[in-house]
């Protein structure tokens, strides 16, 4: 592993990694049964440098912003490397957003360059919003069919220049990325992450979950996500490990990839982990009675022997068939993006597959706490990573209060939002808005949120303000979307729901037409952003002088209602 203390920027570290590990396998890309590409670090450099030079020739200057909207693939990482090499700021966007949302964020970020893939560009190019993204002057599109209409974009594969690119150094405090944690429909929250944020986070994470040449990371979480960016790009690269990309996420091919590529680590969101658990449990339940008894005994033995710490070799021997199904080389499943239920974590640990669960938010880098597995604790989100100061403020009688964090991994601030930044980072401490407490062993336990938002099991942060636009002009007096737990705290991080609070006009009744209107509008939202129920509220909403709804005051008034009776299904 490179000694990151010696580096000022992601670009400098990656540049050296490509030379240091030149002959190691860097990337494997596979599409269903067929392996499409296999690159050494030297090959990677050969593909990235002509792109970096072409960017420089196209007047891409240090500090300029370049967005990537792509599914996970080698060209994502090659493009990101070229951006860092030339001193640019990377804007990684979620490819699952709608074209309108993409244009909003491209405009907000001020990106001058966009790198995307043909199927995405095909939808993005004609969508509304392009005219507003005035800074954007270069669009590169990968894998475009010959003679395809690129609407002013250039084929990525042809965008190359043979002269060597000029490496542009950056300092630790320079912005490295702008990562959107939310805000596609309302107030975009672009977290400005510095080079230091990544360098420090990488040192902390690899101290617990190290990479080395020969280790293979299966990259399934979108690479724009902080976790995959760190453990599916920067972390493995500075250690000379291999990143495996699949061009399909069909479960049958993902399962096969573990065996085929002898995967060492994978990151999953809780939803996928739970599905994996369900699949395995179903297979265990189908075992004939005798085999099932033997299996249960082996699991019990493994559980007893790994109580204090994991013993991978022993677990692989005891539960060989289970481990062989995962390729036999899996060291841990990294789970993040949302809260994972303890029984799911325990299920895998009992099979000898440690799950590295933790807690983090984009604003604090990748992770704040991670389970160190010594011993494994399914009921917590682990201990603070090295370099993280974590405190609980304003604790209640049970010791539960807001989690705050101070560390070199905390973002520089929100792009173009000085007030929001000042509210979020106070005297150097990041106010997470999450509620938690430490147990006597120093493990953090989470108990819900203080902020009006939900996190889905797919790891998506949803802010009510962002989805309200879809209900604009709903024929009612006024409406407001809330996270149900914000109104009625439940001390839980799972099953979070969004609700629509409606105040009807005087004399108006709630009709079937209105219900259908709400259902129709709700259906326009991506499935994970939809509201789950509604509340009819018979009072005027409290408002500011500028007529904005005072959400916190309204939430306090709604608290007096009985949650179970108040929320009606739609």
């Amino acid at each position: 592993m490179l000694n990151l203390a010696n580096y000022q920027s992601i670009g400098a570290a990656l540049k050296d990694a490509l030379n240091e590990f030149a002959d190691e396998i860097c990337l494997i890309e596979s599409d269903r049964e067929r392996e499409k590409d296999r690159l050494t670090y030297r090959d990677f450099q050969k593909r990235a440098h002509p792109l970096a030079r072409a960017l420089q020739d196209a007047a891409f200057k240090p500090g300029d912003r370049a967005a990537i909207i792509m599914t996970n693939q080698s060209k994502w990482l090659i493009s990101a490397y070229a951006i860092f090499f030339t001193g640019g700021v990377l804007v990684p966007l979620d490819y699952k957003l709608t074209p309108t949302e993409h244009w909003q964020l491209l405009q907000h970020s001020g990106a001058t360059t966009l790198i995307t893939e043909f199927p995405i560009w095909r939808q993005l190019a004609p969508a509304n919003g392009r005219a507003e993204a005035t800074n954007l002057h270069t669009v590169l599109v990968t894998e475009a069919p010959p003679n395809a209409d690129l609407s002013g974009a250039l084929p990525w594969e042809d965008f190359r220049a043979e002269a060597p690119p000029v490496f542009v150094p950056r300092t630790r405090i320079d912005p490295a990325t702008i990562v959107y944690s939310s805000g596609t429909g309302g107030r975009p929250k672009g977290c400005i992450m510095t080079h230091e944020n990544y360098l420090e986070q990488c040192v902390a994470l690899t101290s617990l979950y190290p990479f080395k040449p020969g280790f293979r990371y299966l990259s399934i979480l979108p690479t724009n996500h902080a976790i995959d960016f760190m453990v599916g790009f920067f972390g493995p690269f500075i250690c000379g490990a291999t990143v495996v990309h699949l061009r399909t996420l069909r479960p049958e091919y993902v399962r096969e990839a573990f065996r085929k590529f002898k995967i060492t680590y994978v990151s999953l969101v809780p939803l996928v982990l739970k599905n994996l658990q369900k699949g395995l449990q179903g297979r265990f339940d189908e075992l004939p009675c005798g085999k099932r008894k033997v299996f249960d005994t082996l699991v019990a033995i493994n559980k007893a022997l790994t109580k204090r710490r994991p013993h991978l070799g022993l677990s692989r021997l005891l539960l060989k068939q289970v481990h062989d199904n995962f390729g036999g080389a899996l060291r841990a499943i990294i789970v993040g993006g949302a809260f994972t239920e303890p029984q799911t974590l325990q299920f895998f640990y009992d099979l000898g597959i440690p799950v590295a669960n933790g807690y983090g938010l984009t604003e604090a880098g990748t992770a704040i706490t991670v389970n160190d597995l010594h011993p494994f604790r399914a009921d917590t989100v682990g201990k603070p990573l090295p370099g993280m100061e974590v405190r609980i403020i304003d604790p209640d009688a049970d010791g539960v209060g807001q989690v705050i964090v101070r560390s070199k991994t905390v973002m520089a601030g929100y792009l173009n939002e000085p007030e929001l930044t000042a509210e979020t980072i106070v005297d150097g401490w990041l106010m997470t808005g999450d509620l938690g407490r430490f147990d006597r062993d120093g493990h953090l336990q989470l108990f819900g949120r203080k902020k009006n938002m939900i996190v889905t099991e797919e790891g998506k942060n949803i802010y009510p303000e962002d989805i309200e636009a879809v209900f604009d002009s709903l024929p009612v007096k006024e409406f407001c979307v809330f996270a149900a737990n914000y109104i009625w705290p439940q001390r839980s991080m799972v099953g979070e729901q969004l609700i629509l609070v409606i105040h009807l006009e005087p004399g108006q009744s709630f009709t079937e037409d209105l219900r259908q209107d709400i259902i129709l509008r709700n259906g326009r939202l991506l499935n994970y952003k939809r509201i789950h129920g509604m509340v009819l509220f018979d009072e005027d909403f409290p408002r500011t002088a500028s007529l904005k709804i005072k959400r916190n005051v309204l939430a306090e008034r709604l608290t007096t209602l009985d949650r179970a009776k108040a929320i009606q299904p739609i």
Partner: protein
Amino acid sequence: MRTIEQTTQEILDLASRHFNVPAGTLGPDDDFFRKLGIDSLQTLELLSRLENHFGIELPDYEVQGVSDFRTLASRIQSRL
């Protein structure tokens, strides 16, 4: 060659069988996430079943952002 109506009906039949939804309760304009109560992962499973049924390969990107049976049917029809 199937018509788009036939393709749509076969998708509806297969979805109702696979997810144990009473036959005839699904319509072309239904949102399959909502009507079948499934998540994005289960959608991928459904797509694999549809690929086998129709004997086609449907890249993940073709169904990105699709949530109703009618659009899904048109994407499949274009590859038949």
